[in-house]
């Protein structure tokens, strides 16, 4: 009853998110005085279990054919059954789209409470408390959950990984009866290439905003700069909504939440909804024509100038410095 369960998808592998979740789960289980468990669903579950068992007491894997790839209804059914059997006090998930889709419904089926986008989760007088940003990152709230289990999806990458256990936890296999009555079915999946690594894991990000003015400068100016810096490329909501770049590039409250060492914001004003996505960035640097742009209030350093003048010259200078 005091246990903590983390829910993972086999296909995602042992990424930073899984490590952060394992860390968060272990810490919370310690506070609750219970065990930490992992439920891993989908193809790749066995491989992920062999990694994750170094960090949890028990890993339950579900790898049957009907659950190989994510489908909303069967996955929700499987997690409800498995979590229900364990009756934990907390269920933790990552901040991927599937976890966000499942969390409230899982909570409802288990008669618990869901909270999303947590940056901190702890036990306070027998109740779970989750810290999260609200009002587009302008304020921070602490939310106390009134029902058990608490189903919380976290910004998993910003949680410290757990130390490895001395002996690996147990791994068991479960099979769930899946009825073929789903009213929804994912019939096609498409990956958009944004570069080699995931934006969330990038150390350096070059990002463009509304002031970029169109799709061409992203290709002709920002991409070469990003390549030169070994950076991932991203964009603000305004640039994505204008259709200049794909929505997968979006950083902000409703886009990707990133935590790079360097975030170079080019022609981005710094609306609070954008800042909400980069609150974990270690160094923010901006190029903007407006010295009063809000982005500069969060910058280590910046330059007030038209990016069209800055970027070509900056590429030259950086290339020279790299020689």
């Amino acid at each position, binding site marked *: 009853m005091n246990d903590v369960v983390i829910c993972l998808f086999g296909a995602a592998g042992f990424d930073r998110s899984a490590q952060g979740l394992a860390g968060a789960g272990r810490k919370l289980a310690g506070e609750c005085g219970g065990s930490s468990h992992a439920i891993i669903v989908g193809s790749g579950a066995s491989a992920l279990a062999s990694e994750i068992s170094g960090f949890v007491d028990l890993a339950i894997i579900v790898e049957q054919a009907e659950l190989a790839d994510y489908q*909303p209804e069967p996955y929700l059914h499987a997690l409800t059954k498995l979590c229900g059997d364990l009756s934990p006090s907390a269920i933790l998930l990552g901040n*991927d*789209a599937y976890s*966000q*889709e499942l*969390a*409230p*419904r899982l909570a*409802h089926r288990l008669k618990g*409470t*869901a909270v*999303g986008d947590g940056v901190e989760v702890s036990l306070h007088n027998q109740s779970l*408390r989750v810290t999260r*940003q*609200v009002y*587009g990152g302008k*304020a*921070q*709230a*602490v*939310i*106390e959950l*009134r*029902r058990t289990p608490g189903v919380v999806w976290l910004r998993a990458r910003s949680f410290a990984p757990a130390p490895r256990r001395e002996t690996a936890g147990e791994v068991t296999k479960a099979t769930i009866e899946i009825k073929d009555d*789903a*009213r*929804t*079915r*994912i*019939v*096609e999946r*498409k990956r958009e290439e944004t570069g080699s690594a*995931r934006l969330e894991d990038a150390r*350096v990000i070059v990002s463009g905003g509304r002031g970029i003015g169109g799709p061409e400068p992203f290709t002709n100016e920002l991409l070469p700069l990003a390549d030169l*810096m070994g950076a991932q490329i991203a964009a603000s909501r305004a640039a994505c*909504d*204008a*259709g200049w770049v794909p*929505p*997968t590039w979006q950083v902000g*409250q*409703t886009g990707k939440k990133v935590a790079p060492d*360097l975030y170079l914001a080019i022609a981005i004003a710094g609306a*609070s*909804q954008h*800042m909400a996505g980069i609150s974990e960035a270690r160094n923010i*640097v901006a190029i903007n024509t407006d010295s009063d742009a*809000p982005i500069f*209030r*969060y910058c*280590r*350093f*910046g*330059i007030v*100038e038209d990016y069209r003048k*800055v970027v070509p*010259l*900056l590429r030259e200078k*950086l290339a020279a*410095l790299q020689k």
Partner: protein
Amino acid sequence: MNILVCLKQILDPEIPARDFRVDSSKREAERGTANLVTNIFCENALETALQLRERTGESKISVLSYGQESAEDVLRKALAMKADSAALVLNNGNPNPDPLTVARVLAAAIGKLGDFDLIMVGREAGDWGAGQTGGLLAEELGLPCVSFVDRIDASAGKVRLHRQTDSGWELVEATTPVVVTITNDEHNVPRIPKVRDVMMSYRQPLVQWTLDDLGLSEAEVDGKSYYEVVELVIPQKETTCEFITGDTLDERLDAFAERIVAVTSSI
């Protein structure tokens, strides 16, 4: 096709951080000089519905809001954007009800409004951003739910939903009725209603219900038995920016490039 779009009125999220205040004792944002607006993802949902109606012809779009009296403005604007009918459930209680309360109230109102093939909500709101209304509403209604949808096509008892994922997109086929949560995309930027339609919208009927009318008791929907906000603060995170100066652009860029390399080489 019968389409319902749920709309939430919120404090304008575009107000600058320097003008934003919270009342930490009440754990609410202060209204200040900010406008009340329709949550952007709700407007994206309405726009997606309007485009679907334009393509399929015979659909009817109803809009529904649970909010304070001022939420009538959100519904009037939706009528001006050419929604067919509007209903408001008045919230005279907790101004920031928890997501389960909202889902229960909406579910009760939907039961009274009739049968819908498609129930649309925004993926989350720009104020509290819980992102739960769609999922919980689907559970309350016993319906499936598909999240982060940005385009919808309909044909005979089925819908094809184009939705965003972390790495790209997916196409989801669903039977109706279904609940979808809508996210933004270049195709569903909300239209601006014509001045004439805004004026006309105030002559259209608007259903108004209390919780009593829906057969819900205050105790069932107290707005805090799912979760409760116990703290609300504005974190101080601003820093002082060093502006790179110099006599010529070339000089400034030398300094700027060196500073960038200093950061990247320390990673």
